[in-house]
């Protein structure tokens, strides 16, 4: 049975149908990426999976549990971690304290939480910045901090919303290399990405393409990238012809 099964979910906000009958699944230790142009619905999809919103229709099953109607903190407790597209660090706390927050999900001792947090920070090559207050960090470090905090909760699945957006390509690729090692920690991942396709090609086992809320393609990165619907969605109809020639 797949770790995450999204079945025919739809979500409407007023007049906008943000997610339209989307279904896919993610297995254990799998790295899936949801790609799509701006406005395709990636963040909404993530918000639905970690229960910030609830689907109007359809169901989401995680690890055998129906999570369609639970609260976000319950989702985290069940093993879904997430990062935010616009990073949300706790600015007045240090890097270490930020990550400890995640570690506290599995221990109530500050000492143990700190030790766990140090481990995670070492994995993400951030341990030298442990005692810096979060507000002093630059974007690449803040993105890593988001990931560190999520990993510290020992999730089975991490949702990485635009985790490499805004980073210089070298940093993005470095981060991608680290992300590819997530399965070592027993974590599956679903990433959301708009345009940094190099990362997707390098890291993803599977790619799911969204456009205007609907799923238009699914498969390995190589398969998906050549599909005419995908090209049309990203570049427009006239390029669809180009590829066929």
């Amino acid at each position, binding site marked *: 049975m797949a770790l995450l099964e999204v079945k025919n979910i739809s979500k409407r906000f007023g007049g906008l149908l943000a997610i339209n009958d989307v279904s896919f699944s993610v297995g254990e230790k799998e790295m899936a990426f949801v790609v799509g142009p701006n406005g395709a619905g990636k963040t909404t999809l993530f918000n639905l999976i970690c229960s910030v919103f609830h689907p109007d229709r359809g169901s989401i099953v995680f690890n055998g549990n129906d999570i369609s109607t639970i609260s976000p903190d319950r989702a985290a407790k069940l093993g879904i971690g997430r990062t935010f597209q616009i990073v949300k660090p706790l600015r007045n706390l240090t890097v270490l304290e930020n990550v400890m927050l995640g570690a506290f*999900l599995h221990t109530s001792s500050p000492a143990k939480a700190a030790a766990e947090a140090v481990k995670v920070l070492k994995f993400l090559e951030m341990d030298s910045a442990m005692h810096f207050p979060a507000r002093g960090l630059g974007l690449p470090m803040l993105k890593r901090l988001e990931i560190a905090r999520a990993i510290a909760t020992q999730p089975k699945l991490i949702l990485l919303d635009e985790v490499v957006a805004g980073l210089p390509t070298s940093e993005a690729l470095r981060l991608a290399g680290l992300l590819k090692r997530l399965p070592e920690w027993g974590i599956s991942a679903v990433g959301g990405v708009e345009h940094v396709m190099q990362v997707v090609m390098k890291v993803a086992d599977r790619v799911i393409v969204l456009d205007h809320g609907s799923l238009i393609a699914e498969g390995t990165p190589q398969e998906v990238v050549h599909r005419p619907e995908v090209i049309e969605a990203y570049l427009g109809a006239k390029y669809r012809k180009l590829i066929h020639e």
Partner: protein
Amino acid sequence: MSGAAKKKWEAITIVAFFVAALLVPVVVRADYTLQVLFRVFLFAALGLAWNLVGGYTGQLSLGHAAYFGVGAYGLALFSKLGAPNIVAVLLSMVVAILFATLIGAVSFRLRGPYFALSTIAFAEVLRLVAKNLPNVTGGDVGIQVPLLFTHASIISFYLSAVLLTAAVLGITVWIVRSRLGYYLMAIREDEDTAMSVGVNATKYKLIALLLSSAFTALGGALYASLFLYIVPDQVLSMDISSEVAIVAMLGGAGTLIGPLVGSLILESSAEVFKNIFQEAHLLIYGVLIMLVVLFLPKGIVGTLMQKLRFFKSPPQAPFAAKPPGELNNEPERAAIGE
């Protein structure tokens, strides 16, 4: 100074302070002065209690008079029903906790100013109910409150206020060093982030509020017993709610000793103003509040911490890289801080 030694000095200073405070009645005999000091410590305790939910959790409650009043009226009413003093006080703390549960359940669904307005509304409803049910509460005429101590001496009240302050401070220290403290501060900094790592924000806000309400009620009972007679506008008014919040905020919400400092400065200033300016003391008080808001926005202690960088405090951690050597020795201490 290394972290552990610093902590020891902090602890010693605080203990020394309270020992000195307890010894004050040996030196100071004037009833009037002790009464002022009683008020200083009472509001320090109330401010510290408020700080749990208003400072560390970031939920601006402007209705804490509700719990204060419940403590006061609880003592009066339960002892009227025949309960011995201690039982009456404990029961009124229980009632305060029950009210806090109700108020929290409704109010915590709201954010920012709406939460504050909701707390005001609940406190006002309680005040108006107390005013309008003379058969139960004596209405505007008031109700008698038993004396909590065997001697009607201001010294007993003063010492109790000091002990109460020490107790609330102790609880605050314990919380801040625990997971609960982290969770509360995370909720204050960014509730969505906290939820994303499994923190049930409402549950923890409620925990903070329940603790806060219990101690506030205890303070209310103490206060009521000093006057031996209470009316609704005295113990359930927005003036009390505001004073408690202001003491904490001007001293430094979210800092450990902010409310204590705030009360020391504000309550004694208010008393001085009352004597010098008589008629205009509220005006000066208002000017003081405005000056602090303009120039010391993190409160007195908060701003001091920022400037002096003596202690590492979550509300404003100084940007300072530690040398690599120290890093290896203290992942735990560094993480916990104030």
